[in-house]
C-alpha cells in the first residue's frame, strides 16, 4: 500500500493517511500525529466494548504501543489483509485509511483479549452510561442519560459481530469497506450485519417504549 512504485506488483493507491504514515516510518517521533488523530476513536471503541474507563485506557495504550512497534512492518502486514479490499478509485480511497484499518485490527485483538481476561466486574450498560454525566439541567441530563442508557442496552444485547459493526459504523464512522477490512468480512456480509443489528435495536427500543 505504501510501497514504492518500483515494486510493481503493488498498485499505488491513494490513502488518507499515507503522508502521515510515511513520515512516521521515516521518523518514529512523527507517530504522534497519527496517535493524536486516532486516540479518541480507538479509546471510544475500547470503551464501548469494555464499558470501563480504566480498562479502555489500558487497551488504548496497548494498541498504540503495538502499532508503534509494528510500524516498520506495516507495509507487509497491510498487503496481507487489506490490499485486496482497499478501493482503487480515487474518490473512494480519499475516505479510506489503510492505517486506521490496521490500527483497528490491532484494537479488535487487544479488546478481545481484554474481554476474555477481564472478568473482574461485569458492568451493565446502564452503569456504564451512568458514568457519562451531563452537567447542566438535571432533568434534561437525566432524560439524556436514560436515552443513552437505552441505546447502550440495545447495542450491548447484540451478538458480538453485530455490536462491533455498529460501534465501528456509528461511533468511529467507518465506511462499509473499512468495517469489512477490520472485521475480516466481505462488504456484503457487513451490510447484512448492520441491517440486522439495526432491526434488533429497533425492536429493542420499541419494546422499551411500550
Amino acid at each position, binding site marked *: 500500500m505504501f510501497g514504492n512504485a518500483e515494486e510493481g506488483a503493488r498498485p499505488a493507491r491513494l490513502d488518507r493517511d499515507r503522508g502521515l504514515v510515511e513520515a512516521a516510518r521515516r*521518523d*518514529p*517521533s512523527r*507517530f*504522534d500525529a497519527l*496517535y*493524536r*488523530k486516532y*486516540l*479518541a*476513536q480507538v*479509546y*471510544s471503541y475500547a*470503551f*464501548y466494548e469494555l464499558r470501563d*474507563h480504566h480498562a*479502555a*485506557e489500558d487497551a*488504548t*495504550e*496497548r494498541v*498504540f*504501543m*503495538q502499532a*508503534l*512497534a509494528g*510500524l516498520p512492518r506495516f507495509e507487509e502486514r497491510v498487503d496481507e489483509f487489506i490490499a485486496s479490499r482497499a478501493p482503487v478509485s480515487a474518490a473512494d480511497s480519499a475516505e479510506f485509511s489503510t492505517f486506521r484499518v490496521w490500527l483497528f485490527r490491532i484494537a479488535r485483538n487487544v479488546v478481545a483479549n481484554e474481554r476474555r481476561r477481564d472478568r473482574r466486574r461485569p458492568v451493565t450498560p446502564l452503569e456504564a452510561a451512568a*458514568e*457519562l*454525566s*451531563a*452537567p*447542566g439541567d438535571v432533568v*434534561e*441530563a437525566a432524560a*439524556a442519560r436514560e*436515552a*443513552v442508557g437505552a*441505546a*447502550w442496552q440495545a*447495542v450491548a444485547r447484540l451478538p458480538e459481530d453485530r455490536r462491533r459493526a*455498529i460501534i465501528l*459504523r*456509528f*461511533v*468511529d*464512522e467507518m465506511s*462499509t469497506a473499512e468495517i469489512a477490512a477490520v472485521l475480516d468480512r466481505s462488504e*456484503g456480509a457487513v*451490510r*447484512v450485519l*448492520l*441491517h440486522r443489528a*439495526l*432491526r434488533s*435495536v*429497533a*425492536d429493542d*427500543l*420499541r419494546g422499551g417504549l411500550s
Partner: protein
Amino acid sequence: MLGNGTRDARRTERYLNGLMAADERRAPDVPVDTELDPAIRVAAQALRSDLVRVHPSFRFEESLSARLAAGALRLGSGLPVDAETAAVPGTVAPFRGRSAAPVEEPVAAAFVELAAAPIVEPAAPPAPSTHSRAIWPAAAFRRLPDMSARPSRPFIVGGVGVASAAISIGAVYVAWRHSHPASSRMGRAARAAHGRTGHSGHGRRSGVINGILGVVS
C-alpha cells in the same frame, strides 16, 4: 438478482451514508428511500445521537504521548519498543499544535464528541482534534437542529471523585489539627494559661460542648 435481504441491507447502507453525510454538512434532512423500514430509520437516528464518541482524559493523553515518544526514541535507535517501560526521564513529549502554556486539566477529566452537533469552534482550543466533529465542552450546550432534537451534551468520563476526595482530605486535616494543637512555645503558653494539661483537643471540645450545654440549660 438480489434477494430481499440484500436489497434491504443496501437500502439501509444508503440511508446510513446519507445520515453521516448530513451530519458533515449539518443538513437537517436526510434523503430517505420510501421503501426503507421506518423502524430502521428511527433506530439509526437514535444510535447516531446516543452513541457518542468518548475522549480519554487529557492527563492520559499526554501520559501516553510521553510513553510513545520514549518508545519512538528507542525505535529510532534500533531498540525494541517496550510497552511496559515508563517514559524516559527528561524526555519532552511533543505537543504539536498546542501553545507552550501547560494545558489546565479540567475538573471533569474527559468529554466526548457529540453526534450531529453544530460545531462551534472556541477561539483557542486547549487541544487540537483532527476530527471534524470534535467540539469542546464550552461549545457543547447547544441543541441539535436535526431529527433527534436532543440537546448536545458534554459527557464526562473519569475524574469525578477528585473534588469529593479533596473535600474529604480537607475535613480530615481540619479534624486532626483540632485534636493536635501546635507544639510551639505560644501554644504551650496558651494551654498553660488556660490550665489545660491533658489532651488539649479533648479539652477544647469539652469546653465547647459544656458551653453549648450551658446555653441550652
